[in-house]
């Protein structure tokens, strides 16, 4: 092969959420440098929370992410209710799960149709894909809208919803609203199954790798709003013990922190959840899943199918929980703040989201720590890029290498603290 020196600069990687950079240097046919750099401007939420009342926390942490505000709100109220020893009871638990289902449906459908699928079918974006696959894209956007409306029912709006409070909700929906939503959810079941079938027919690369999956596990439900932390290598932790095994590092040129499990990268998100909890999907859904891909899967490209399966699950789960809806006398229980430490976690669309708060006797936050899913996946993304490029072959042309890198990164649906969208790829070869 002719020796050549190549320097590619792609200033903006489209269809990811977050501001970062990738540096790829290839020398003598081998990867010399491959580093995912995140340089999104720091937004310092952990510091802003200090001195704030517990009542303000759900509204503040929502602003960390416009795409998954519910995840931030639920992990936060889980932690603060842990600190204040509050049990909001089964109605609140059910409705938080329903709200969360709305966010999974919205976020997964956005990612599948507008961010990820165009790659596999050779389109620049979802709008271009819609010209040839109009029915598929319209079905996807309609499902996304259903997720948004589910969030709106419990939160007033789908971005930065206003319904969640420590102790419960601010408002309980009327029975008529719930009945109308139930009809729409029932009607969407067939579309969601068709979506699963469609993702399973996409020409996904086959790239099997060895990695650890980490997710919450709940005694009797598919993981979402709460649970213990488990891995496929036998880890089984109370969320309070998270910091004993998971450590965040700050590396050069990155404004996101790298998180490691006992010193090694690991995966969180839809594929990790499905790998660990497929037995907790309802039997009627399991029976209707396509034979391929099968789960557990070690092919990260199957993530798009995992998202579709979770979309179908979330539609059925919301319908199940709303099917037993009774309007309560009060949508929240009383909360008495105290000086304490509280820890809470939940499964954001992109994976495990862990919060820890220290409060004073008046319920003001003294210290906050938030570990988002993307910082947990960051080390794993780098590891995957190395393995994927090696399997793909480094002598592909630069466009093909760049596309493969982008696809690998998009498999994780990175929400790099949900900021800007620049991922710079610099390739150097000699």
């Amino acid at each position, binding site marked *: 092969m002719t020796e050549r020196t190549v320097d590619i600069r792609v200033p*903006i*990687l*489209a*269809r*990811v*959420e977050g501001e970062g950079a990738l540096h790829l240097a290839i020398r003598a046919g081998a990867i010399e440098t491959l580093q995912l750099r995140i*340089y*999104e*401007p*720091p*937004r*310092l939420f952990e*510091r*802003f929370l200090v001195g704030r*009342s517990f009542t*303000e926390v759900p*509204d*503040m942490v929502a*602003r*960390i*992410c*416009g*795409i998954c*505000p519910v995840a931030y709100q639920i992990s936060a109220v889980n932690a603060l209710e842990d600190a204040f020893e509050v049990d909001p009871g089964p109605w609140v638990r059910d409705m938080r799960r329903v709200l969360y289902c709305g966010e999974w449906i919205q976020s997964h459908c*956005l990612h599948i149709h*507008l961010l990820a699928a*165009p790659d596999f079918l050779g389109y*620049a*974006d979802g*709008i*271009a894909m*819609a010209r040839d696959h*109009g029915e598929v*894209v*319209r079905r996807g*956007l309609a499902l*996304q809208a259903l997720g*948004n409306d589910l969030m709106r029912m419990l939160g*007033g*709006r*789908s*971005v*930065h919803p*206003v*319904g969640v*409070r420590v102790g419960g909700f*601010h*408002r309980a929906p009327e029975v008529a609203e719930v009945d109308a939503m139930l009809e729409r959810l029932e009607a969407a079941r067939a579309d969601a199954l068709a979506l699963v079938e469609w993702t399973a027919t996409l020409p996904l690369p086959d790239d099997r790798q060895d990695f650890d999956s980490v997710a919450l596990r709940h005694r009797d439900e598919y993981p979402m709003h709460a649970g213990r932390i488990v891995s496929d290598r036998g880890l089984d932790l109370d969320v309070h013990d998270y910091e004993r095994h998971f450590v965040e590092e*700050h*590396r*050069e*040129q*990155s*404004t996101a*922190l790298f998180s490691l499990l006992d010193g090694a990268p690991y995966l969180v998100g839809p594929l990790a959840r499905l790998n660990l909890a497929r037995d907790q999907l309802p039997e009627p859904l399991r029976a209707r899943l396509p034979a391929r891909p099968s789960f557990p899967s070690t092919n990260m490209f199957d993530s798009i199918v995992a998202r579709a399966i979770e979309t179908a699950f979330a539609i059925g789960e919301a319908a199940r929980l709303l099917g037993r809806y009774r309007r309560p006398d009060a949508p929240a229980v009383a909360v008495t703040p105290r000086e304490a430490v509280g820890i809470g976690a939940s499964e954001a669309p992109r994976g495990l989201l862990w919060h820890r708060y220290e409060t004073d006797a008046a319920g003001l936050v003294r210290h906050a720590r938030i570990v988002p899913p993307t910082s947990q996946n960051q080390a794993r993304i780098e590891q995957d890029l190395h393995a994927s490029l090696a399997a793909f072959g480094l002598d592909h042309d630069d466009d093909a290498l760049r596309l493969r890198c982008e696809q690998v990164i998009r498999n994780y649906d990175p929400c790099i603290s*949900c*900021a*800007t*969208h*620049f991922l710079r790829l610099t390739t150097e070869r000699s």
Partner: protein
Amino acid sequence: MTARARVAVHKFSSCDGCQLAFLNLGPALLDLAAAVDIVHFAEAGPVDPEAEVDIAFVEGSITTPEDAHRIQTVRARSHHLVTIGACATAGGLQALRNGEDLEAWLGHVYAHRDFVAALPESTPIAEHVKVDFELWGCPINARQVLAVTNALLLGVTPSDEAEKVCLACKRAGAVCVMVTRGVACMGPVTRTGCGAICPRFGRDCYACYGPAEGVNTRALTTRFEGLGLAPEDVARRLRFINNAAPAFREAARTVTGDD
């Protein structure tokens, strides 16, 4: 036939939530894409950040030296520049660091301060370039972006929704949470556009749409003190999503007695 309008969506420091006003349009997103050329919108796919456009929507505040430079380019290439959301219009929640010891704060979050480039303050777009129209809200919604897009395409000035949340509440027939339950609601000084969702959910407005026109913050802060809030509690109500909006910033200073 005139050429189709060219539209860009640019992103600075923010949570991405205002761009979702487009991406959450549902099937209407395809109708919008059929009516205009979306030439730059990185999250949706099209990437051409330096393209000349008729309308540039700008999300996010300016927090890095690089972004302070980039907004100049956006301005130079855009006929109309419209800010979307609290970050672009008022500096956002992240303006809470303005006037604080940024070095110490970065040290609080990051182990290696020197890896992180940041300006001392988070500032709205209008402190850097001329802005043609501002859409307030955290987040803005689909109704707002479609209204401003249609107005600009038709060559009319978009209408500025600057009245107070209280008026939207009254029209919606919502029960006043402050009058009936003594809840410290920011509605009397907050701009409408959200649909008064918080009072309609039986809770306090927390001013995510920023200051309304002609607000009397002094009367409201006095009322809050009458409800039993300490000065620092009153100040926190003002120093939240739109903390750097001048009307709220000044009112908070008055309450706490800071200069």
